[in-house]
């Protein structure tokens, strides 16, 4: 698990304030906790609407943890760090 690369996918719809906030928050948390072992893929549903079905996306923005399994989803602008970390199952090392 330590060696695994985290594959995260963020679904957005255009550059809305919420999407921008969510992306900024996500980047911040990843740099803090998963430095060097994460990939973030951003999918803009306005450009690729057909992709929404696959991951059952309803809410925007939605963060999907593809790897490691199982799939986890976090919706919202990710403003609550504690919830995001719990949701992604990232336990801060030094806490």
């Amino acid at each position: 698990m330590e060696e695994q690369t985290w594959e995260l996918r963020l679904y957005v719809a255009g550059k809305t304030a919420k999407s921008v906030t969510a992306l900024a928050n996500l980047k911040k948390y990843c740099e803090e906790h998963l430095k060097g072992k994460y990939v973030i893929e951003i999918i803009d549903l306005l450009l690729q609407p057909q992709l929404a079905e696959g991951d059952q996306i309803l809410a925007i923005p939605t963060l999907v943890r593809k790897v490691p399994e199982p799939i986890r989803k976090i919706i919202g602008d990710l403003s609550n760090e504690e919830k995001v970390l719990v949701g992604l199952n990232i336990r801060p090392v030094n806490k």
Partner: protein
Amino acid sequence: MTAAFNLNEKNYFNKMATKKEKTPPKLTLEKTPTGIVGLDELTGGGIPQGRPTLVCGEPGCGKTLLSLEFIVRGATEFNEPGVFIAFEEKSEELAINAASLGFDLGKLQNDGLLKIDHIYIERSEIEETGEYDLEGLFIRLDHAINVIGAKRVVLDTIENLFSGLSNQAILRSELRRLFQWLKDKNVTAIITGEKGDGLLTRQGLEEYVSDCVILLEHRVVNKISTRFLRIVKYRGSVHGTNEYPFLIDSEGISVLPVTSLLLAHEVSTDRISSGIPVLDDMLGGKGFYRGSSILVSGTAGTGKTSIAAYFADSTCKRKERCVYFAFEESPQQIIRNMKSIGVDLDTHIKKGLLQFHASRPTLFGLEMHLVSIYKTIKKFKPQTVILDPITNLITVGSVSEVKSMLIRLIDFLQAEQITVMFTALTLNTIVSEQTDEGVSSLVDAWLLVRDIETNGERNRGMYIMKSRGMKHSNQVREFVIRDSGLDLVDVFLGPEGVLTGSAREAEQLKLQAGHVLRDFAVGRKDKEIQRKRTVLEAKITSLKEEFESVADELNKSYQEEDLRNSVMEKNRAALTNIRNNKEAATGKNRKAN
């Protein structure tokens, strides 16, 4: 908003009017036909076009099927592609469910007429943090609509979102936005919702969808379940406001009845025979009116079914079609029994002119019976329908329910110009005859077959209680069932009153004996007179003879006298001659003298 809308609609209509002449150029709500039997009549053409309609009800009342049929009919009958967003069932499950109604969802999807999108939220995998919206749903919907050019959308059941997401404030505002967005997309949408406590839907969706709300209900009365549909609200349109029963069967949903909200059907002056010549005579000589309703009521074993079978027989002999709904006996039983009175129904069945539909009344509720009768009639298109007996329907409904069902059935049949004969059982013990009296005001002709019990035997008497619009006999006839068939005999009106059965026959025999005796007496007197005449004539002859002999005698003496006279005259002349000669010559002649 209203003004703008009206303007839009006007433009829209103008466009429509130039494109299709069929659409009347008037400023009314444009409607989208659902294609569901009965619902379009009920709503005056369908649900509001380009607006969302809410269909709500308890679990298992048919919301999903109704909305699915809306989409499928749109795709197959009106060439309007549709999107089905399923929040509850997976598309494979939906396809299986729809297959039971004869819909092939797979084919429609391949043809690009249908798109099913299954949306589910797994609460356990979702964490909410911060602000979000449901743009993803919009995008998916938009994508689905655009891909197939959908005109119809179903969201089944959108309230499932509430169990998946916890932020109600966001959900509600997003739903409001969604419904507005659907209107802007100009798609006709059906949104389903579960019935809640005191509310039409659990989440109060009705406050967002204000144009048309349809409520489905599923009620079990006397252990028999019936589904009902009611249009709670339909803004800007006239609609039926009652609860209408509906049926889900192998061909989808049928809402009933909607045939006649008015009493304005065509009537016929054409007459058809009852199959019993004497009965036709009693009905002004020609029988019943075509398209009328006839009630035959009577106590047990009075031959109601026989009358009905005769009617069916005569219909088929005219090469017309007849449907016989039997609620008491099986078709084979009726065929066998009718053979015993010389009615061969079997050949009519083989020729395809006669159909039997036998079912126990308790098989399903009254409304289901009505729907199944309706569907059978629509399919077979008979000229004559027989329901035997309607009294059995009481077991599944109250008198008023049966009556209301029959009203609607009669309305439907009259609109289709179908003649219907009901039979009803009356009970001797109950003073007022229930069903037949309840129904009698509805029917055009009412025949009553009654037991007349005298001298230790029961005989059947038939009356015509009423027959609208024709002269009919007021006489009681005795109704006789023989091996050769049914017959109506004049009852004997003797000095002792009305006589039937063997009393009638005895009276007739007595009468006959009287005739014979009188004939005999008359004969004897005739002979005596003849004899007297002979005697008289003989006497006359003998007197004549006597007279003639006397006359003869008289004649004889006359003749003799004449003869004598003539002889004497001769002699005298001779003597004179001789004397003269003697005087001249010798006297010898004198000596000789």
